[in-house]
Structure formats: C-alpha cells, structure tokens
C-alpha cells in the first residue's frame, strides 16, 4: 500500500493552549484510519490543519511524497481532500443540491448559468443509490440535523476526493443511516479512497477501520492496526488510565410522581402517548429518528402548545405552550439536540454559558454575586471534566464534546426537579460518558426525575430504569429495569414489534 498523506511534526498553539505538539500522522490509500482521543485531545484541530481551516505553527504536510502548503479550504479541495466537519457547515438558505455542489457548481455548457436541474438530478441519483428519500430542492434550513448530516456526507462523497475526513459523522445519524454510511465507506475503500474517521464509538471503529491512532493532549500516543489492538487497549491509551466503567446501581423507585403525560397527541409528530416519571427515576425514550420523541419533550418543556391531551407536573396540569421561562422556574431543565442552534451562546464565555439559568438564584441585594457564580461554574466544570483554558474562554473555542458538556452541566442545580435530555452524550468521549452517566445517576439519587431521549440502544439499556420504545410517534412498549430485552427493543424501534 502506498503512503499518500504524511503529516510530520505538526504543532499548533492557540494563545496559551498547546493544541498539537509534534504530531506525525500518515494515511495510505484505501484505508480507513480511525482517529480517537478524549474531548479536546486535538483531533479536530489536526484535521482542520489538513483541511486548510487552521494554519499549522510547525511541521510539514506531504501528499504523495511532495510537500504541500494548504493555506485555505479551497487548497485542500484542490488536492483531493474532502472534509465532513464536526460542526455542521452547510448554508441554511441554499438547497440540498446547492449545498452539495457549493463551490463547484455545474453549468449549462460554457454559459455562466448554473444547471440546477442537472445538479438536482445527480444528487437524487446518489441519494437513490442508498435508498435515501430527500428532496434535492429543499432548503437546508428546513431539514433536521440527521438529514443535514446526510447532506454533509453526500457532499463529501460527490467531491471526487481521494481522502475524506469524517469528524464524528455518525453523531446525528440514526441506526439505519449509520449502516448506509458504513456501506458507503466500504465501497469507497474498494475504490482506493482513504478515510480518516473520528469517532468516540469503539465498536464502530473496530468494525470499519484498519488502523487506529490515539491522541492525548495534543500528542499521538498510539497508532496500530485494529486487528492487533483491542477496545480496552485503545481506551486505556486515551487517558493512560483504565476506563472506570459505569455500573448502574440498583435502586427502588419509591418517590412521588413528578410528571404525568396522558394521551398526548400532536398529529404528524406523536399520538396518544401516556407515561409517568417519578422522583429519582430515569425514563429513556428510544426509537428511530423521526419517532416523535423530541417533539414530545418540547411539549413537556412548554415550547410547543399545539397538542391534545394532558401533562401534569406534581399533580398540577401544565398550561400548553407556557414557555421555557415557566418551565425553568418550575425546576425543569432541557438539553436540546441541536447545540449550535439553541444550546450555546457562541460569543459568551464558558462561565456565562453555564450560569445563565442560575442567575436569579445568585442575586444578592439585587446584584449578581459573582463569587457564588464562580463557585457554581467551577463545580460544573469539574463535575463534567470539561476541558477549557479558563471559565472566561469563549465557548466557541471549545472542542465539540466540551461544548456538549456545558449544555449539560448548566442544569446541575440543587433545585432541579425534572431534567429532559435529548441525546445528552452526543460527541462525548468514552471516559466522559461514564462520568455523565454517573452524574445522571447521582441526580436521580437526589430525587430528580430524568427523561432522556437516546438513539443508542446500549446507552438506553445501561442508563434506564424504564424504557419507552416509540415508533412513528406512538408508544410501542414500556420496559422496566431489569427486564430489558435488546432484541425486542430494536424490533420495536423498527416498527416490527407492534402488538405486544
């Protein structure tokens, strides 16, 4: 096999943060090369240097033995490198096809006019090949995050690149779509295309990658064949310590009912849903994307009022669409599934991002008590082991996983009664995931009711006290700990389990 990409001695600093230090990374044709490491280890930074987004401070990049300078994303494109970035990088106001061909539009012959029809046709053909139904003429703004991720992937696939970098491509994908992606990857491998694959999912990596490289604090600590490696070995080298596996403690749910949902219906989203959440209970909803669970969660949080049925909170009926302000005042918290859109406040510091829901409680004599906030923020950062150079750091400079941690950690408040988490561990590394599970369990131990939406079956089983499977907006079954049956759940989610 021929070594095509060779990055040598790459170094990069952001002010005081040494993000990469003397990194050597190579990639050969036709291989899937997994790049792993904790949140903030430097994976995305390394790839952004390759993609021309950041400029390296030191080192050289060679492609096919020749030294290259990649000064801008277009240089990377010109050299046959395509990127799927960790954060969505689409243009909302353009169509699917417009996005996929952005920067290399097809034209009507030699005229300056773009051939929208041909672009749409090619995109549709590509989508059809993988059995995807997505209208190439839809505006990207109208897509959900899973669909957007698919657009990103299709864009990379259609770019004629010999190297595709995928930075956590599966974090927004449903199981089906993941399978589709792996099909893609296998086909491309056959065509000799190389793939650098970043993920926090060990099983994924061991099923599709030939080579795995582990980064820790900006340096490469391990690079070996997956065949000769093991999940445990890789996970250990990410921190240098053994993974402290999360084990769900056994507990009795005896507390009061916090939330009662009765016959909730919103045509087109969910139908006739009923369930309870008790104090200290972790209820996990699962299903495929499009199962209606996010809409349900939003109705409970008061973001949407157009439903029939009844929601009660500590026995009191809730006014439909009363707004998040009331929900927060009532002791509810929500982590949304789209952190860029409504999870973070990009120009503000980590401190401000965490402290916002706490403000009223940190007021002394009408003024904000900075010291109390500092204490809360420091605790939140510590509890979730968020990696930031300081609480004053602007959140937009954090790595993806660390942003996600902040969306979560801002709700760790003593007065919290009900926490709703939509895909809470998206993009979070294996060690931090275990930490987060522990925190969720601690919260439950304190009597907080927890309602989670997760699409990862293993996570569902690991965390839940009770599981609701949903299919096309309707509850299929309810399972209580410890009677979880993974196969049946998967069948429920796929719509095959209707009837029991």
């Amino acid at each position, binding site marked *: 096999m021929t070594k095509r990409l060779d990055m040598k001695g790459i170094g990069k600093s952001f*002010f*005081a*943060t*040494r*993000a990469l*230090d003397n990194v050597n990374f190579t990639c050969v044709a036709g291989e899937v090369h997994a790049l792993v490491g*904790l949140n903030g280890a430097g994976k995305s930074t390394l790839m952004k240097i390759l993609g021309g987004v950041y400029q390296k401070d030191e080192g050289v990049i060679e492609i096919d033995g020749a030294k290259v300078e990649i000064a801008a994303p277009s240089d990377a494109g010109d050299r046959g490198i395509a990127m799927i970035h960790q954060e969505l990088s689409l243009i909302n106001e353009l169509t699917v096809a417009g996005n996929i061909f952005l920067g290399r539009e097809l034209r009507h012959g030699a005229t300056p006019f773009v051939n929208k029809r041909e672009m749409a046709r090619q995109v549709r053909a590509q989508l059809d090949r993988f059995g995807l139904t997505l209208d190439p003429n839809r505006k990207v703004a109208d897509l959900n995050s899973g669909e957007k991720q698919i657009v990103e992937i299709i864009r990379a696939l259609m770019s004629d690149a010999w190297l595709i970098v995928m930075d956590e491509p599966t974090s927004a994908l449903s199981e089906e779509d993941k399978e589709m992606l792996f099909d893609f990857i296998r086909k491309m491998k056959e065509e000799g295309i190389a793939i650098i694959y970043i993920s926090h999912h060990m099983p994924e990596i061991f099923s599709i990658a030939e080579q795995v490289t582990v980064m820790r*604090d*900006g340096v490469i600590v391990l690079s070996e064949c997956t065949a000769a490696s093991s999940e445990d070995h890789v996970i250990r080298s990410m921190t240098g310590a053994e993974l402290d596996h999360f084990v769900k403690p056994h507990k009795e749910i005896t507390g009061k009912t916090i939330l009662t949902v009765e016959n909730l219906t919103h045509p087109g989203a969910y139908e006739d849903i009923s369930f309870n959440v008790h104090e200290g209970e972790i209820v996990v909803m699962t299903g495929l994307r499009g199962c209606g669970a996010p809409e349900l969660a939003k109705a409970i949080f008061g*973001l949407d009022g157009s439903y029939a049925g009844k929601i009660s909170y500590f026995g009191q009926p809730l006014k439909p669409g009363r*707004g*998040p*302000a*009331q*929900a*927060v*005042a009532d002791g509810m918290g*929500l982590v*949304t599934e789209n952190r860029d*859109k*409504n*999870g*973070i*406040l*990009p*120009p*503000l510091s980590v401190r*401000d991002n965490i*402290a*916002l*829901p706490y*403000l*009223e409680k940190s*007021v002394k004599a*009408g*003024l*904000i008590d900075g010291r109390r906030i*500092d204490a809360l923020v*420091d605790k939140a*950062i*510590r509890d979730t*082991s*968020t*990696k*930031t*150079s*300081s*609480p*004053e750091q602007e959140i937009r400079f954090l790595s993806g996983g660390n942003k996600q941690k902040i969306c979560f950690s*801002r709700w760790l408040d003593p007065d919290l009664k009900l926490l709703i988490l939509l895909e809470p561990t998206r993009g979070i590394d294996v060690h931090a995931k275990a930490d987060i599970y522990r925190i969720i369990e601690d919260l439950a131990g304190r009597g907080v009711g927890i309602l989670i939406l997760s699409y990862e079956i293993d996570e569902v089983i690991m965390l839940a006290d009770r599981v609701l499977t949903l299919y096309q907006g309707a509850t299929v079954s309810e399972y209580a700990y410890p009677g979880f049956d993974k196969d049946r759940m998967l069948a429920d989610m796929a719509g095959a389990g209707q009837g029991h």
Partner: protein
Amino acid sequence: MTTATATTPSRPGFKLDSLTQRYLFLILLIVIASVGFGIANENFYSLANIGILLRSIAVPFLLSMGMTFIMLTGGIDLSVGSNVAFSGGVGVVALTATGSAPIGFAAAVAAGMAIGAINGVFIGRLRLSAFMVTLATYALARGMALVIYNADSINVSDAAFLWLGGVSWGNMPVVIPFVALVFVALSVLLYKSTFGRDVYAAGSNINTAFVLGRRPERTLVWVYVLSGALAGLSAIITVGRVSSGQPWAGLYLEFDAITAVILGGTSLFGGRGRLLGTILGVLLYGIIINGLVLTGTNPYLQSLIKGMILLGVVLLDTLVQRRNAQ
C-alpha cells in the same frame, strides 16, 4: 496545554483579550489626537475648551450608552435622535402647561420611553427588523416633534428645568458628573444585574436564551425602552443647554452614537462589547470633531478628513490586533 481535564478556578490573568487591547489602542489614539490638536491650536488645552468638549459629548454619550445595550442584543436604534426632539417637546409642553419642572422631566422621560416601547414591542415581540422599525420611528418621532412644536421652538425659562443642561460650576458643566453617575448606574445594570446578562444572552443566541428560560423578547423590549429613557434624559439636557425646546434637536445623533459604539469595539452582530469601549469611542469621536472645528478648515475638506480619520482608526486598530495575534 494544561493537561488537567478540569481547570482550576482562575481569574483572567495578564492575558489581554482583544477588547482590552482595543481599549488601550483607543486610549493611545485619544492621546495622539489630543497632542496633535494641541499642537495645532494652543486653545485646545484650555480649561474652557475641555469644558466645551465634555459638555458637547454629554448627549452623544448618553445616547451611545443606550445604543451599546441595543447593539449588544444585535439590534440598532435609528430613532434616538428624533426621539430627543420628540421627548423634549413633550417635556417642554408639559412644563409650560403645569409650570412644574418635575412633571416636565417625568413627561420627557416617559415620552422617550414610549417611543422606545413602540420600538421594543415591534422588535422584541413581533420580531421585526430593528433597522426597519426604528427607521419608521425615526420619521415618526421627528414628525410628532414638529407637530407638537408646530415646527417652531418654545422658549424655556424655568431655572430648575434648565439646571441640568445649562449650569456650569466654573468650567465644569454640571451635566458631566450627572453623566458619570448615569454611567455608573448603567455599568451596574449591565455587569451586575440579571438584566445585563440577559442583554448579552439575547444578542449571542436568542434561541438559546429563549430555551434557557430567559425571556429574550422581554429583554429586547426593555432595552429599547432604556434607550428611549436615555433619549428623554438627553432631551432635558439639550433643552437646558439652549434654554428652549427645539423641533430639530438631535438631528443625526443616531449616526454619531452608532459610530462611537462601533469605534468602541462593540459588534454589530450582538453579544460582544462593553460600555468602557463606548466611552472611549465617544471621546475619540468628540475630540476629532472638536479639533476639526478648532482648525477651521473648509467644510468639505473637514468631511474628507473626518472620513479618513475614521478609516485610519479602524485600520490601525486591526493592524495592531493582527500583529499582536502573531
């Protein structure tokens, strides 16, 4: 790179963030401009001129403070200048009708807040474009001022009403300590109250602020009301300064305010900026204007110079920042 996964609690240390750098740079420019004009005209440094300078920036200063809040939310308020005329008109008419200065003050501030409330409701609640809404109230408030005054000025002789804008202790106009007080109050509001945090939050990502239960639409309404209130205060100062109510008061002040706020490093897109920057922006802009008056060049040449200086300021600033970033 710190290898600990969690940071130890740390206060911002020696590292100068980009805003602080900008402030230092503005201070440097202010010094350079002062020295330059001082050399060009020895009167520049006279106490009297400094008094004139400070007095002349009092009103732009108040308006820019309000504009800073608004621009932190990602908005803009083109109506403040017209609002100065309108709220002044209401105040003067109320004063003439009742003979009571406190009622006149209250009426002026309330009128200013009313225009602000219109802006706020249209922008915050109805989610309409701030530029468009305030462009409409820019015409509306000016028009109502003309109607109230019937396009003519009204003389004011009530000493209490004129005190704030008219009286000086020696070379020190009383309006200066007043403005300083307002600054302190607004700083407390912006940095120490939950409202202030909400202002930043609304400008950083209004969707997130909403989901976190912060009621950003309400914050927006209040921000415009605040700006209107400051326009009302400015109206009182303006009336005091000229001993009369004027239908054409405040013309173009919105552009001066916006310019000063942007010079002070506040982003047009919201979420980033501080009041200190605005002070420096107002001061620098005020010095440039004052200096140009003193040099008394041809007005067209003055326009050209003003343009070049503005450009020079942002240009130098970027070059300095860039160099520091290396």
